[in-house]
């Protein structure tokens, strides 16, 4: 299933947040959204996921989602959004319980996704017992459990420390390599964007518009920890954004 954004625009009150965003998210690819703080990346993701209604333009789903897909557009949040009162297993079960699966199916799905995210040993642990990296792996397992057509990931690694981030990037690449998924991946981190994105869309400052879309051809599996080619693209992206990032940072939040 593909996603198409058609001339999306959005406002909050009298602030225009997004302007005329047109973008295709092709099936089986990861599209990264980068841009300075407050340019509307998260808002755009919420529009794509149907959590908000765009003021202008349309978000279209093209084609059918996969057969056993329970939730075509599935989020992975920056703050993990795990229920602290449920175990790892319970958190994954949460998103399956409403679907009246045939008996035994739910257990099978949970075991499968926990295995894929190497969490089988932690099925009974509570979120507070887990490190940030582990928590985000649970959130990813939960997203995988509904077999999404498109994953909408809002800075999934930015609450983690640098080393864990590195490890989780490897995990994501491994997951994608085994079974390619479609994803819109919002990030501040250009290193992440060039490691994980097949396509990187650079947004301008608020109101966010698309400044450039960079295609990266090299297969995900071949992108290394510190790769000269990628560094070049990263430098190019940073050149595009640097001044805007500085300006965004120095803005007063209010009054």
């Amino acid at each position, binding site marked *: 299933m593909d996603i*198409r954004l058609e001339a999306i625009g959005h406002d909050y009150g009298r602030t225009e947040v997004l302007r005329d965003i047109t973008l295709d998210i092709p099936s089986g690819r990861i599209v990264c959204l980068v841009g300075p703080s407050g340019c509307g990346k998260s808002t755009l993701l919420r529009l794509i996921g149907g959590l908000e209604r765009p003021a202008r333009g349309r978000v279209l789903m093209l084609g059918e989602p996969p057969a056993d897909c329970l939730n075509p557009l599935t989020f992975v949040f920056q703050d993990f959004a795990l229920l602290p009162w449920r175990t790892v297993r319970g958190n994954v079960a949460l998103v399956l319980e409403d679907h009246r699966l045939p008996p035994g199916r739910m257990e099978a799905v949970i075991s499968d996704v926990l295995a894929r995210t190497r969490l089988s040993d932690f099925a009974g642990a509570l979120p507070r017992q887990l490190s940030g990296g582990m928590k985000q792996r649970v959130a990813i397992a939960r997203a995988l459990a509904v077999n999404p057509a498109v994953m909408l990931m809002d800075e999934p690694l930015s609450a983690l420390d640098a080393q864990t981030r590195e490890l989780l990037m490897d995990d994501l690449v491994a997951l994608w390599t085994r079974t390619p998924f479609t994803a819109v991946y919002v990030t501040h981190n250009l290193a992440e964007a060039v490691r994980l994105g097949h396509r990187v869309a650079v947004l301008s400052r608020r109101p966010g518009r698309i400044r450039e879309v960079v295609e990266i051809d090299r297969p995900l599996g071949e992108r290394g920890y510190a790769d000269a080619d990628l560094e070049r693209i990263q430098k190019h992206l940073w050149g595009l954004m640097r001044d805007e990032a500085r300006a965004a940072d120095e803005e007063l939040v209010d009054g």
Partner: protein
Amino acid sequence: MADTAAGMAAAVEVPFRGGGFAPRPKRWVGPATFLALIALAEWGTWAGWISPLTLPRPSAVVETLIALARSGLMFDHLLPSLTRLAVGAALGVGAGIAVGVLIGLFSHLRAALVPLVAALFPIPKIALLPLFVIWFGIDEGSKYALIAFGTFTPTVVATFGAVDNVDRSLIRMGQSFGLSWWSIVRKIVLPGAMPGILSGLRISLAIAIILLVAAEMLGARYGIGAYILEAGALYDLERLFAGVVILSLLGVLTSAAIGALERRLLGWRG
């Protein structure tokens, strides 16, 4: 349009599934509810399906209030009550904040006083009324004492909770810059505890108003509490409700005053 791009594929707009779970202010509903309830009571007492034993007629309550204000008696009742509230609450809250801060700062005091306060908290103040009369006399003394005692314990609890909740990383910062103990208390601990102390104050003052009636049970001829008690003894529902309305307004006003204080003192919270 979508079809040209995606060939045969169907193009469906993403369904909306967000929203809700976010309270929106509805300005007119609150006053409307009040008016509706009052109108209902008026109608019921007028038509007779609410007996005058059950509820006074709202318009009669308003008349009573107006008469009370006209005759100047309102002032005679308000002045002593406000004085009792002010003095009693000032004593109780002042002592409560002081003790609460000390408990927050010193482990030994905490260990000694916290169980004491916990044991004092559930003691109903009316039960102690006879004792207060013996200790502080039948005049203003026992009334101040009752209100002071009633506001003291919740203030202590709120204050030491607030001190405990001051961000330890700020205190560590102060130490790392070599600030003196007293500077840390004055510039970090106290301002940091202020939000908790103020929200404790809100509760304490509500309790003070509630205790006014108990305080004026003994030996008070004037005062809103005494007025309510007298009305109750005479089974004069109009006056009873008039007094209750005054207390309720007093509560709302106090709460608004603390709100204003919070906006002033805690503007930094944004």
